[in-house]
């Protein structure tokens, strides 16, 4: 059974060969790994790999899952390949990017409009919160499909401000 994951912005395939608790799985082109998994607390996974002990805490956020292991943070999106958007089909590692507000704030400036081509790292929307202005950027090259942000509007954390494809 194969799934598609995005880990900290990078796409990876994931294959589960044997289910929990005695997992065998493969991440992208990596080796097939055996892992014994238990869930000692809700959202906490104790994973033993070759005798090494990992304590993984999973948080659900508006933008997807966040897995924290020993202070290292992984933003992970788990997608079922059968439900992938038709537009993105066949283009490995690409698909719709939703630019979301990382925290509550106010939209100060919208730098692009629908139809504009954008490059990775290009600024799209500027949001102000806690007396600081922050420019939200495109993660990958693409074109602006839709801008939902309005200058002057207050936004909540996780609210979609723009969609790039």
């Amino acid at each position, binding site marked *: *059974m194969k799934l598609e994951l995005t880990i900290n912005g990078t796409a990876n395939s994931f294959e589960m060969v044997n289910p929990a608790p005695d997992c065998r799985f493969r991440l992208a082109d990596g080796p097939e790994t055996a892992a014994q998994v238990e869930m000692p607390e809700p959202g906490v996974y104790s994973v033993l790999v070759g005798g090494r002990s990992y304590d993984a805490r999973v948080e659900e956020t508006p933008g997807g899952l966040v897995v*924290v292991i020993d202070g290292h943070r992984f933003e992970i999106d788990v997608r079922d390949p059968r439900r992938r958007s038709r537009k993105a089909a066949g283009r490995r590692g690409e698909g719709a990017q939703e630019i979301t507000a990382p925290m509550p704030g106010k939209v100060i400036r919208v730098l692009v409009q629908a139809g504009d081509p954008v490059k990775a790292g290009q600024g799209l929307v500027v949001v102000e919160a*806690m007396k600081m202005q922050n420019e939200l950027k495109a993660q990958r090259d693409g074109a602006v499909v839709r801008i939902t942000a309005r200058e002057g509007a207050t936004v909540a954390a996780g609210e979609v401000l723009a969609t790039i494809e």
Partner: protein
Amino acid sequence: MRTLREMGIATVAVYSDADRTSLHVRMADEAVHVGPSPSAESYLRLDRILDAARQTGSEAIHPGYGFLSENAEFAAACEEAGIMFIGPSARSIEAMGSKTAARKAAIAAGTPVVPGTAHDIDLPQARQFGHEHGYPILLKAVAGGGGKGMRRVDREDDLESALRDAASEAERSFRNAEVYIEKLIDRPRHIEIQLLGDRHGNMVHLGERECSIQRRHQKVMEECPSPLVALHPEMRAAMGEAAIRAARAAGYYNAGTVEFLVDEERRFYFLEMNTRLQVEHPVTELVTGLDLVRLQVEIAAGGRLPFSQEEITWRGSAIECRIYAEDPYNNFLPYPGKLTRLTRPLGPGIRLDGCVYDGWTVPMEYDPLLAKLAVWAADRQQAIERMIRALREYDVGGIRTNVGFFRQILEDEHYRDGKLHTGFIEEFFERQGPPTEPEEMRAVAALAAVLHTAGRNGHTGEAAQAASSAWLTAGRDALLR
């Protein structure tokens, strides 16, 4: 509040709308609402704070730090109302509160100061200063701190626009557009001296703190002793005496801190004086074994200093990290939001001061400071190891914090060698990017995410095949317990 509890003194918390469920309100014996969330409508309203004191029959006010703590008008209003202000006199706040007035007082006391103007300047005066002392120079707000209203200028051509920007930012932050000018010292170290004086004319210094690790001119890590002073111990007495001279010139009493910049030749220059208790006071408390808040209250009540300068000792090493809800790898972008999980570090030598609890929401109206994590150990190397251990145990979920960033700094060779200066963080980012994770850890994270999705979606969907039915059911039962 903890000290007041220990002293058997009842406490009253004042709070704005955003802080209704803040920890200080929950801990206090009484609480009074002082207004809507914006500080200008609540915490900065002298009248409302005084009303709260009168209404509850409070005998004293501890102004904390920030807000009205260095507001001479407020201190005077307390004096008039017959309410004890736990701090210095209104007059000495005034003498030391304005940066330019403080410089004047320091110069008069014979304390070395950074070359600069003792008064606010206009463009022609700024140009003149640049000609005399050369560039780079620093424009600074007369009425404030925390990096606001501050601009570095490297060339005369940039002076006009820099002055304009600094003045307007100062106006917005402190309602005072006055700007003064200083020569910029290269790679300075920020070393400050803690002072304590009673109302009977006795004053001592409690040693130094090094606060060179800053971002946006705000301190994020502090330590006592300073690694530089540890190598050159005669600096402590020299800086201590210079600080006392400057403070006495202003008629100062209670707790206060004199800040110095130290150049690469170990010359120190008076920068400014903070006429209040400071955020980083725990590292001094840990190394001297004193409770500064207790001493503040006793002094305010008329007590004498219970020790002389010779009786003060410094033992071991303390480091403090200011835990902020922000992402250091994205320009320190603030991250207000709800804490979904909190595990605090415990064990020997750990001190955690903060307002954070599981389920609390970081408000976006104020500074995103969550807590101050301080450690004490027998020497600096052990303090570093202890802090790393404490940071590993400190698990905050739901928002981003700078915990991982501090871990990187503590592992950094330059930090460990004590090679600190106020540009440390900028240079650090030139040396280091965000921490990289081991490949296997990444794979485990992916596995956890997949299993979690399976558990959430129940027995449907592709991800469900990731876990056996029995395992999924057992997991869901645990969640429902």
